[in-house]
């Protein structure tokens, strides 16, 4: 036992004398590993290169730019945290944060629940019927956002639109769906919901397909009713899918912008101003690229924080 300190004493000079050796070993290890994984790297390389060029590099540039005052010209002035401080007093930005929060809280859980409900109804159907519903719900997701928004514009149009026409037939009042502060955000939320609903349906149908029918049969034999099977078997086994859907839906709703550009331009009176639209407007209408980047950084932090919280809450048992 007494020898241990001596051993340490003798080892330390050896380490200090051979840092080059250690570095060489490390390098050889890394190169060896790279060589071993060469085919994996080869196939991943195009995606990695594109991801680095078009995601990582702009992300780093955006983070950097948020500490500068930058306009249309290439001149930049370092302003430290001033852009972030200014955000706190920017009423339009705060309104955008509130609106985005309302959209996320209203649409993301609803699309997840609706996606679950629809997939539970569709799953027992024949493969053909399942295929039809998969396509039907996923179609808006792959259609052009602009085209969808234009269709919804016609539906919501206050004087000759479909919705008010139907309401009128039922004796209802004429509503300015997008032109009133009370209705504009919920109306926009509905458009976003129809747009993103396809992904949860598709993923949950796939998730349901991975649950062993034997488990269900055993539970049935043990006397478990449909509700108990849903609660005790389906939902726990769908938890990874639910987590993934909730995270991706939250991020998708946080990034709502196309419908805003086409349908309301953030109006009326900022009632549909969203986080990303505010960034877009700040950069391309007000030419404040540094300030817009600061907003983008805050959005990034928000999205990361929400994702972490969701992982913590829903992913706890997955880790175990």
């Amino acid at each position, binding site marked *: 036992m007494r020898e241990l300190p001596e051993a340490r004493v003798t080892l330390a000079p050896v380490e200090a004398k051979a840092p080059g050796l250690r570095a060489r070993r490390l390098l050889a290890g890394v190169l060896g590993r790279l060589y071993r994984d060469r085919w994996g790297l080869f196939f991943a390389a195009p995606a990695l290169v594109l991801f680095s060029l078009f995601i990582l590099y702009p992300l780093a540039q955006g983070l950097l730019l948020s500490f500068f005052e930058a306009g*249309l010209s*290439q001149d930049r002035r370092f302003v430290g945290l001033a852009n972030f401080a200014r955000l706190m007093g920017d009423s339009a930005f705060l309104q955008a944060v509130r609106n985005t929060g309302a959209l996320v809280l209203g649409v993301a859980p609803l699309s997840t629940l609706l996606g679950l409900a629809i997939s539970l109804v569709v799953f027992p159907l024949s493969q053909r019927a399942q295929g039809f519903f998969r396509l039907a719900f996923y179609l808006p997701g792959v259609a052009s956002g602009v085209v969808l928004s234009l269709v919804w514009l016609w539906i919501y149009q206050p004087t*000759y639109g479909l919705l008010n026409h139907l309401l009128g037939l039922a004796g209802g009042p004429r509503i*300015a769906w997008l032109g009133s502060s009370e209705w504009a955000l919920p109306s926009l939320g509905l458009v976003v919901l129809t747009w993103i609903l396809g992904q949860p349906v598709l993923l949950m149908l796939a998730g349901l397909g991975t649950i062993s029918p034997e488990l269900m049969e055993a539970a049935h034999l043990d006397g478990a009713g449909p509700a108990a099977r849903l609660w005790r078997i389906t939902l726990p086994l769908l938890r990874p899918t639910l987590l993934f859907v909730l995270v991706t839906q939250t991020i998708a709703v946080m990034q709502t912008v196309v419908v805003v*550009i086409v*349908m309301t331009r953030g109006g009326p*009176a900022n009632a549909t101003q969203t986080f990303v639209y505010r960034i*877009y407007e700040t950069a391309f*209408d007000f030419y404040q690229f540094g300030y817009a980047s600061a907003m983008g950084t805050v959005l990034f932090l928000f999205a990361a924080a929400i994702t972490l919280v969701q992982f913590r809450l829903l992913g706890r048992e997955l880790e175990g």
Partner: protein
Amino acid sequence: MRWRGLTGVLLLLMGSVLAGCGASGKSGAGGGAGGGRTRIVYWVTPEIKDVEGLEEQTREYGDYEKIQAAEYMKLHPEVEIEVQPLAAEELTKKVTASIAAGSPPDLLKDFLGRTAGYAHQGLLEDFLPVLPKEELEDYDPFYRKLYTVDGQLHGLPIYAWTIAVFVNRAIWEAEGKADLLPPEGKGDWTYDQFLTAMRAVAKPDRVWPWWAQFASEQADYCNYGFFWGKGAFVFPPGDYSRTTINSPKGVEALEFLVRMEREKLIPPGTTTLANSELQNMVGQGQTAAWGDSLYAFQWVDTARKQDRLKVPVKLQVLQFPHEPGLKSPMPVGPTAFVVFKQKDEQKRKAVMEFARWLNTPERQRIYCRNARQFPTRKSTGDPLADDANFKLVKQWMDENGMVDLGLTAPAYYQVRVAAMPHLQAAMLGTKKPADALRDIEAEANAILQRN
């Protein structure tokens, strides 16, 4: 060996990706002049289509400019021109994004309210050194002055619009109320006369006579038109360091618009209605009057030919209302060819040469006739001399004078955008008109000070 081959493939792949990016960047910037042909990227705002005599070939915006480019390339085989028409809704953001990315177009045809901002940032070429004296002096001094920023002529003015009130007289005639409108050939009326005429044709849930445009800054002149007749303006003449919109007369003007909304003289949802929706409403007889440029005649004609007018439409042009004893001044909005800064001297010459070729008096005549706008060169003459409405509006411009819109203020466009949410809030009733104007003043002055 296999490892080396793999590395080679990877490098090749990365090289091709980078080369792709390089090529696209070069394209955005219009390419260089070295070696082959000089490539010019030319972006145009949507103002000219259905050109007289070329209706079949110019059905869409940008078609006419493509014909011109082909003609120029025939004359100058060493030049290659790529024409890109811009959509009205996204043109500002697209140009801004291209500037921010370092690849703006070489040549842009756009409105002074936007190009002056680019000039203030030092992004545009100066035309003064390349224009011969007689050519320079052929441009109306009024427009030359407007386009001079920091002693540089930042664009070649092409034409200019003015905004007036357009009414579908057929609606008043059908109601037997045409006498409430100023007689044809006369244009001025007071706020009370205007209100009486609008009330006369309003029908609950069917006709909202005044087509107000509060959805975006693009049509804000049609709202500010109600301010000018009371002597309230966004900027004091020649002083763009502050806004004067928040004045007792300004508040009165906004209250007037809000009152029309409360009386349902303005369509529901006016704060987000798009221009195309409002054009449909005109075609369906749901609305009867609006602010517009003389291009209104053109789009109404096109709608008629395409059978999109479901009710008779008989356009009459009028002035915005004014207070007794005051006149309603006319706004003027010129468009110009501007050239973004070029690094290559040969290419700079080529782009400026092309811009001058595009803006000869003969070509200006064609633009003016088809965009229904006023020429900027003396030798262009009077392209719409046969048009009684054109003459009438010109007469009002001379008699009533022109509004100083502040188009050359460095932050003109940003002030316009910033004002919209507050004007919308007033129309929705979530802000009192006085509060809305106070907030516009605070925000606009902050923007003006920053710039």
